[in-house]
């Protein structure tokens, strides 16, 4: 399955992928998974999806997993967790269950958000039989554009049949109300800038946000 996914992603024209791995997975298993994608010419960025139910659980998970993953995404299961996730600078992406009408991305969260909002476009549309998903996605795009929140688009696929090319994902978002330029950024430059920023955070010269060592150690 993994090999097939890697081949399809390569055909679709991707160069870097965000691989979501379970938090308890052994390191050698992660290495072998990464190798499958590398063999198909794909760069791999490790990401974890945190689905915490309370503020304390989320903060504990962030403390524990932030250093070992390239990208941290939080699935917002409640309004309270969503507020904490949006405010915390360790969180790169927040995403919502588009079929759940109780918790949606709103103006209050858009004012708080420090990272980006992620929309798993293809899986949401293909899995859902409800047409209200289209409305939820359009509204998310509208709010994000109004508050200048960065948007990341992904297929959210775990099967080769659900993979779509970046051109198609951007087109789907454009059709649902995202500006064409924002849609292109959402599949290309925005995710890459998150990866680059986190790469810098993991470097030895990084002290904290805005502070880093500029003189070489030899001097």
């Amino acid at each position, binding site marked *: 399955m993994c090999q097939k996914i890697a081949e399809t992603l390569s*055909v679709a024209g991707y160069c870097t992928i965000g691989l979501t791995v379970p938090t308890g997975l052994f390191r050698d298993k992660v290495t072998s998974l990464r190798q499958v994608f590398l063999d198909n010419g794909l760069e791999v960025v490790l990401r974890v999806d945190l689905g915490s139910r309370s503020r304390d659980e989320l903060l504990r998970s962030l403390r524990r997993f932030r250093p070992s993953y390239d990208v941290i995404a939080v699935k917002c299961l409640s309004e309270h967790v969503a507020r904490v996730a949006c405010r915390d600078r360790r969180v790169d992406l927040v995403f919502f269950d588009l079929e759940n009408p109780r918790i949606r991305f709103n103006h209050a969260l858009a004012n708080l958000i420090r990272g980006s909002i992620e929309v798993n476009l293809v899986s949401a*549309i293909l899995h859902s039989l409800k047409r209200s998903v289209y409305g939820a996605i359009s509204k998310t795009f509208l709010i994000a554009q109004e508050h200048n929140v960065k948007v990341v688009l992904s297929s959210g696929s775990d099967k080769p049949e659900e993979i*779509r*090319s970046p*051109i198609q994902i951007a*087109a*789907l978002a454009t059709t649902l109300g995202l500006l064409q330029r924002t849609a292109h950024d959402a599949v290309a430059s925005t995710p890459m800038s998150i990866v680059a920023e986190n790469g810098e955070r993991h470097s030895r010269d990084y002290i904290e946000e805005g502070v880093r060592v500029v003189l070489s150690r030899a001097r």
Partner: protein
Amino acid sequence: MSRLPRRYLLVRIVSEQAVSEEQFSDAFMSAVRMNFGEIGFARIDPKLVRFDAGRLLAVVACKASTVSELEAAVALISGYSGVAAATLVLRVSGTIKGLRARLAKQRRS
């Protein structure tokens, strides 16, 4: 009378099973019709230009101003005759010759 500019899309089907031209054409046309309606269908004016059943490649065309709509419609094809498959848009060009050049380049690499 001058012709309206068109765009040609190179489409690749990723499927475990063989897909015939008829199956692709049915799924393609109904995806456009289902998602954009009859008026949208007329506006997009989709056409299946070529189909290669061996390599599972197709060239489809639409009006230049509606490329995004056609790309989105192709993304929403979930399978052929009940079998799940991915349908990927690999390239958009203003001429079929441009798509052919891209295919030749892909084959060389």
